[in-house]
């Protein structure tokens, strides 16, 4: 079975190659078949391999397949090797399965775009890069996928390239993530010199032997890797690119937010968990970054008008939950939330895309309204996605996964009441902004006429994703009811179990609080945006509230800050030195030389009189000197 492994990334890559080289000569139908078909095929292969993996687990706990040696210099010999264990399996499943649904949806969504082939080529490459990232057995190959993901996000965010704003957003995404990537590359150097290899299983095996618990070199390595993760996963302080990444077509957002790109950081930390475990400082940093980000992004989501920006901030916030869980050592909870989030976030983006398209590319939620009965399929699927995001108790997948994280924020060994409170507040805000988005978009009176209705290609993926958004949570139930641990059993092959504090048994209470908080958030939005909208109007009168609103709306002023301290000084220096100050030195030499020879060349006038005069004057001077001496 494991010799089919290479096909999983190879199929999307083949799709990319065909579409990139010959896409313009193929019919649109064929383009869609190749684009969506390649990813779907790779999803099917992934599922077959996955079933095989689950039914007859390999004795080593993983499948590996080496294709060739990439580089061999001295003892540095990274190979093109794919490595599939339980953790990669979950990621591969999510990437290919959700990726395939997004591709199928796109075949309908992008039907009228003239750059159909270019779109699918980039999407295929995106899926390919992400698959390389999660299947790589060494960090260099992982880095290839890592950078490839960055490239594809650049290409797709700037897909509609005529508008310079889109180009700006695309470059912003690439450059900001590259800052993290560079730090990560340095982290790779550190790891290589510590362990003499970049092969992930080897590093993880050697790390506890070479480094003692809390070694400062472990902290350095972990923090450098974290910098990479923070960039790709849009966490503080490198989160500013993601809200602008909305410039791309909506399926791209779905792909970036759900199946690829932003989850790369979560994968990296989970994959390298042994390194992080050796450094309590780095672990805490991960948790703190996650907590801070989930709160900051949550408040920003509360103030957005653009439906896609609400979703973008909600992604940052939800990834913040995953980082929090990783930092707490709740490894499987983080991955579980990654999976459920992938389902409902893909669903929300695709449904939002359908709404936006139906309303003539209107992004502003406050110009939508009253779509409940007009777009029933979209309404119901969007409702399910929202419920899952808001963690509506008992029936949604989002509840089960988020509940785990909240519980561990309190009960895990390095959990604290403060982290728990932040996570709880975050859950409250999440419920509030989700309900706000839902109410404003689908209830109330209709403000924009519907232009066209989504076809089957678009609605079927929505229905499938809605199904998973509800039921994916049931594979992992809390131990006090149901006690089903299918998911964590699988992952515990790779990831360690979470260590709990001694003497915490009242999980019921925490679940109850979490449930109340979610419902409370929804109720708040219901009061402000449905029942008594005058309260919002009243709030808008107050100046401090509006200032705060503006501050949150602009993403807490990070863009402005970075512009002031990084972008402008560098651009300024670059521009004043446009003509290269070093060259002035050489021009100076030329200048002096010219000044010196000009007077001399003036004497060489070609006129005989001058020469005779010169000779006579010279002779006189010489005689005079002789006489005087």
């Amino acid at each position, binding site marked *: 079975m494991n010799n089919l492994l290479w096909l999983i990334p190879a199929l999307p890559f083949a799709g990319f190659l065909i579409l*990139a080289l010959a896409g*313009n000569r193929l019919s649109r139908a064929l383009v869609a078949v190749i684009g969506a078909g390649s990813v779907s095929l790779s999803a099917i292969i992934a599922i077959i391999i996955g079933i095989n993996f689950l039914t007859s687990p390999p004795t080593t706990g993983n499948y590996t397949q080496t294709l*060739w*040696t*990439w*580089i*061999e*210099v*001295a003892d*540095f010999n990274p190979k*093109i090797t794919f490595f599939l264990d339980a953790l990669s399996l979950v990621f591969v499943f999510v990437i290919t399965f959700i990726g395939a649904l997004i591709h199928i949806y796109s075949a309908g969504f992008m039907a009228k775009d003239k750059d159909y082939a*270019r779109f699918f080529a980039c999407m295929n490459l995106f899926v390919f890069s992400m698959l390389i990232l999660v299947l790589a057995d060494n960090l*260099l190959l992982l*880095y*290839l996928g*890592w*950078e*490839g993901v960055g*490239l594809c996000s*650049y*290409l797709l965010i*700037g897909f509609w*390239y*005529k*508008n*310079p704003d889109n*180009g700006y957003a695309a*470059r912003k995404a*690439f*450059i900001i993530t*590259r*800052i993290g*990537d*560079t730090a990560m*590359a*340095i982290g*790779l*150097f550190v790891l*290589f*010199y510590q362990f003499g290899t970049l092969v992930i299983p080897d590093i993880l095996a050697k790390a506890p032997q070479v480094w003692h618990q809390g070694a400062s070199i472990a902290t350095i390595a972990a923090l450098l890797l974290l910098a990479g993760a923070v960039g790709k996963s849009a966490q503080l302080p490198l989160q500013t690119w993601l809200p602008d990444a909305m410039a791309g077509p909506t399926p791209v957002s779905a792909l970036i937010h759900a199946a690829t790109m932003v989850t790369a950081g979560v994968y990296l930390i989970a994959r390298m968990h042994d390194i992080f475990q050796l450094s309590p400082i780095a672990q805490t940093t991960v948790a703190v970054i996650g907590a801070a980000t989930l709160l900051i992004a949550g408040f920003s989501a509360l103030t957005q008008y653009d439906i896609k920006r609400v979703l973008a901030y909600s992604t940052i916030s939800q990834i913040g939950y995953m980082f929090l869980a990783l930092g707490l050592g709740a490894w499987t909870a983080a991955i579980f939330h990654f999976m459920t989030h992938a389902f409902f976030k893909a669903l929300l983006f695709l449904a939002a895309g359908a709404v936006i398209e139906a309303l003539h590319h209107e992004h502003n939620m406050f110009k939508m309204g009253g779509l409940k009965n007009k777009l029933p399929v979209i309404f119901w699927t969007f409702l399910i996605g929202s419920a899952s995001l808001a963690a509506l108790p008992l029936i949604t997948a989002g509840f089960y996964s988020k509940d785990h994280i909240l519980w561990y924020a309190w009960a895990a060994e390095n959990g604290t009441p403060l982290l728990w409170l932040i996570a709880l507040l975050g859950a409250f805000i999440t419920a509030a902004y989700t309900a706000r988005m839902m109410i404003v978009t689908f209830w109330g009176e209709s403000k924009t006429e519907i232009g066209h209705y989504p076809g089957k290609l678009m609605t079927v993926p929505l229905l499938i994703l809605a199904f998973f958004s509800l039921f994916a949570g049931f594979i992992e139930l809390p131990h006090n009811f149901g006690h089903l641990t299918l998911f964590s059993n699988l992952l515990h092959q790779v990831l360690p179990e979470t260590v709990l504090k001694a003497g915490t048994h009242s999980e019921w209470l925490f679940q109850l609080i979490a449930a109340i908080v979610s419902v409370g958030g929804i109720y708040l939005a219901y009061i402000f945006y449905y029942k008594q909208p005058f309260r919002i109007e009243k709030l808008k009168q107050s100046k401090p509230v509006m200032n705060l609103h503006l501050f949150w709306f602009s993403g807490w002023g990070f863009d402005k800050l970075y512009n002031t301290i990084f972008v402008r000084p*560098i*651009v300024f*220096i*670059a*521009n004043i*030195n*446009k003509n*290269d100050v*070093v*060259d002035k*030195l*050489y021009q100076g030499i030329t200048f002096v030389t010219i000044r010196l020879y000009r007077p001399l060349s003036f004497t060489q006038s070609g006129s005989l009189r001058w020469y005779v005069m010169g000779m006579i004057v010279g002779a006189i001077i010489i005689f005079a000197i002789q006489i005087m001496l």
Partner: protein
Amino acid sequence: MILVWLIGILMTGGVLALLLGQWNKTMARWIALFTLLACFLATLFFWINHYPVTGATDTWLVNYRQDWIPAFGISFHLAMDGLSLLLLVLTFFLGILAVLCSWKEVTDRVGFYYFNLLWIIAGISGVFMAMDLFLFYFFWELMLIPMYFLIGIWGSENRVYAAYKFFIFTQASGLLMLLAILGLYFIHGQNTGVYTFNYFELLGTVLSPGTALWLMLGFMIAFVVKLPIVPFHSWLPDAHSEAPTAGSLILAGLLLKTGAYGIMRFALPLFPQAALELAPWAMLIGVVGIIYGAVLSYSQTDLKRLIAYTSVSHMGFIMLGIFAFNELALHGVVMQMLTHGISTGALFIMAGMLKERLHTRDINQMGGLWTNMPKMGGIGLLFAMASLGLPGLGNFIAEFLILLGSFQVNILLTVIAALGLIFSAIYSLRIVQKVFLGPSVRSDQVRDFSWREILIMGMLSLSIVGLGVYPQPVINAAKPMVDNLQKIFSTTHKNTQKENLTPSYTQKYLIKK
């Protein structure tokens, strides 16, 4: 003998092109193409026959020696190891592309043009093979003069200024090298009684540390001006931007590499001790070059100048890598020489193609070209990505190995150099944005690639991707040279340490007593 043939063929081809070009322009083009193709195939087959090059006890694959002026110990001595072989393959490969991309661009004095082109390439190949310092200097000058004509005659508006500048910079620095060569010649002669320019015999010359440093600086100045390294880079943007497309291609792809080659072949092995002392400073100016070139590149509006400054930045990596003196970094340097030649060459060719169509190099007058030229856009994107070091393309392997290697030697400088990766993303994406994306600035139709252009860019794309996913043939070929260089430095390093340690041992001994 093959080495003599290569140079002979090139020179004869040049003369033929000059003579026959008088009455038939197309004939000159075909002669140039066939000449280079013959050389390329010859070296390529040689490589394939000798693959994987490693394993031979003797690092020299071919060694040809014939007395030239025996009275002064000058011989016609050519030799080739893996490094020379790689660079020769690159030279002829880019040479072919240079002929192809001048096919339509050059219509004036075609015969003389191809004569110059072939003689430059003959000079460059000579530089890569000469094992007699006098002969080396001869070839070093040989590539200079036809290049001067190439820029001065077929360049654009400001060509005369650029040609002078190029000539003076390289000539002045070359003279210092000549002095250093003569110095070494006489010192070796006085020491041993044998007056010779032979590289192999000069290798072990015993020099006082002071003399060694000065002689080394004489060599280094010529090489770093060619490379170029800040602050000796300022001829490059002018020469690049004014030269015809093929001229820029050869400058960026090959001429700069002669500097790097010179350092590795001559400056380091001849003066290992001095090189070790100089290393931290050399690495420092390498890093300064990386950042300085990148920042300058960002502010340029002339496409060719922009690309020229990216070269300055990329050559900083070479300097950093060479003076890190370790296997990883040196392999990275060899890779960087090849991949930079290909990727920057490709960008210059593309700039030439754009100029042919738009009659401008100003990127503010471009924009939105993707709509009409998706093929060129795609290829442009590929090489912009190569230039910013995207994994999967050759440049990544090069820069990663250099950084990985130098990290072992100097962490701080490596971290600063790694910032270059961020800057390279900024300027590379700026090229793509300004040229291909954004709203269309021009309303007229611009035609996409012709078949000839697809052939050129296709070959370049294939090679950059090939080097990115399977760089092993290059690494294997360069291995004997790198190992050799490493051996020199590890022994020198040990000797230095011993000298440093001796007094402290004595002191300890004395203290104990």
